[in-house]
Structure formats: C-alpha cells, structure tokens
C-alpha cells in the first residue's frame, strides 16, 4: 500500500511518481531463479508488453492483488517481452503504474524462453503463472484475468503452502 500512498501523495503534490527501475534483462533461467528465491509464500509471474492491450488492462489488477497479498507472502515477478527499442515506453508505463520494485525484460530466443519458463505455455501473452513457495507451478493461464480471479488464484497458491 505504501506505493499507492506515495503515488497519491506525489500526484497530490503535483510531483511525478518516482521512476520505475529499469527492467533487468533476463532469460528463462534467471526468471526461474527469481521464482525460486526463498522467502515467498507464493510467486505470481506475469509476462506482458506495453503494446499488448489486455496486458495493460490487467496490470492494475495484478498490482492490486500483489499489494494486497504481499503481507501474506505473495511476490510479483513482472517480465516484459517488449523490444529493446521500447525501453523508454516500458519504463514510462511501469512508472505510471507505480511500480517501484525491480522487474525484468526477457532476453534470448522465443522458444528457449517459453519452454525454459514453462513447457505448457504456448507463448501467447499475456501469460500469468502462479508458483508455490517451493517454486512449483500450481496454475497458469494465457489471456487477461480480472482482479477477483487473480486474487482467488493467488490466495489458493498461498494456501497450497500453508496446508503442507
């Protein structure tokens, strides 16, 4: 919630929101390593792009869920598949959404990235993946989802761990 508060305060003060960190280039291995970093109760991974309307539409809902469930251990990993020349647009979008944490931009070839991240994924975006605390994929979907759907699924992924 602190991000929202900061954003609201910044807007109220007529200040631009703090710029988002530049997305770090990452292949599938680096993303998987991020997913498996210890400490999370569940990890929500979203693959998106600035030019992708459904991605942009669901972005606020993903952030909303991530912020709400962060105290429960949910970690959000955002992976842009924007082209390198779109870095300014990517940063501008992330900033406008109040993203103040590190995110990623994928590198390497499509197939290695898609299959490396998850063989079940066809490569269509937006794509969202939910992992439990052990880095095991518990759910994934292609296409956008709404706030209540994302939240319910994330809560279930968090509960997967709690019931172990």
């Amino acid at each position, binding site marked *: 919630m602190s991000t929202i508060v900061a954003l609201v305060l910044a807007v109220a003060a007529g200040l631009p929101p703090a710029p988002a960190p530049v997305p770090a280039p990452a292949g599938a291995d680096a993303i998987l390593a991020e997913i498996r970093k210890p400490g999370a109760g569940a990890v929500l991974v979203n693959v998106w792009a600035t030019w*992708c*309307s459904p991605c942009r539409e669901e972005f606020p809902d993903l952030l909303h869920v991530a912020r709400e469930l962060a105290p429960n251990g949910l970690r959000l990993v955002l992976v842009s*598949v924007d082209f390198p020349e779109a870095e300014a647009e990517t940063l501008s979008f992330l900033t406008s959404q109040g993203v103040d944490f590190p995110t990623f931009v994928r590198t390497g070839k499509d197939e290695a990235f*898609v299959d490396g991240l998850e*063989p079940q994924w*066809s490569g*269509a975006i*937006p794509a969202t993946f939910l992992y439990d605390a052990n880095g095991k994929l518990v759910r994934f979907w292609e*296409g956008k989802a709404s706030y209540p759907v994302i939240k319910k699924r994330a809560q279930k992924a968090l509960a997967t761990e709690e019931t172990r």
Partner: protein
Amino acid sequence: MTRTHLLAIPVLFCLAVSASLAGGALPIGATIPMQDVTMKNVDGEELNLKSIVKPAGTLVVFTCNHCPFAKQWESRIVELGNTYEAKGIGVIAINANDPKEYEEDSFSVMQQRAKEKGMEFPYVVDATSNVARAFGATKTPEAFLFDKNMKLVYHGAIDDNGKDPSKIENAYLKLALEAVLSGEPVPVPETKSIGCTIKFRS
C-alpha cells in the same frame, strides 16, 4: 506442445480469453478441421478451407494486423506463402481476432495489408473465431502445415528469430514446407514463439 492433446468438441472448447490454456492445439497427425466453414477473403469472396487444400499440402497461418509479433513475421509469412503456393502448396492466412478488441484487425485494414504486402493467397476473416478454436490456435502468428494426406505435420513458429531475419538459425516453417514437398518427415514438427493471444469473439 508435445503433451497429450485432446481435440475437444469445438463448441465446448471455447477458450475464454481469461482462462485459455495451452494444450488444446491440434495434435500432429490430425486432419484439417472445419473445412466447410465459409470465411470472407480480402477480395470479398467467401471461401472455405476445403477449397484451399492442394494435393501437395496445405498451410494455414493464424495472423492479424495489430500484433507486433505478427508484424515482425508478416513479410516472411507473405514471402513463404507466395513462394510455396507457386510450388503447389495451398496457402491461407486467417484473422480470428475480434476487431472490437483492436480496430486495426478490421476487414478494411486486412484488405489494405494484403495489398501492401503483396499477398497472393487468401487472407480471410474467421468471423466466429471458431476455426481458430478448432485448430486450438492461441496466438498470432501461429502456423499449421498439413501434408498431402491433409494430416498435420508442422505446428508452431515461422522461424526462430522474429526480430532479425538475418539471424535466423532455424527456418522451421520453410524446412517443414520443403519436407512436405519432398515427401520427407518434417525435421521439427512442433515449435513455439511468443505471440499475441487471439482475441476470440465471444
């Protein structure tokens, strides 16, 4: 896409955009589905897949106008389509996207794009998105190549480098087309690329 594929009844297999999952794509060896469904071509004529089928083989590419990934490969799709249609392969490009989602996917822009790019094969509207559903297509661009027996022998990417054609290491679709023409097995039958989800009509 190498896992078990279930070709569900198309109507039941309505992949809601919010819940579509990979796994429903037409399996290698499957026959061309929905051959009798009429679709409007950019020249205004109505045609169906049956009329596209040629004795040597048939290429069906799901694509669209707006998607940056489809655009990356657009010239290559047209070049491959034109080249291999001249060599005896039936070729068709299908836009299954709901233009309500992206105005750029409208019929008039399809007409314009086909003209600009010099498409010598049909570029049609899947007006219900049911053809895409029957193929289990999930994104654009996505290619399905059928052999002389109308059996699926290749499904997936155009090649392995959307960004830079000079750096292609595996021209997957071209290799598959050559294999089909020579009656050889396709070297890599299933591949993937990143693409835009098909904006299915509800």
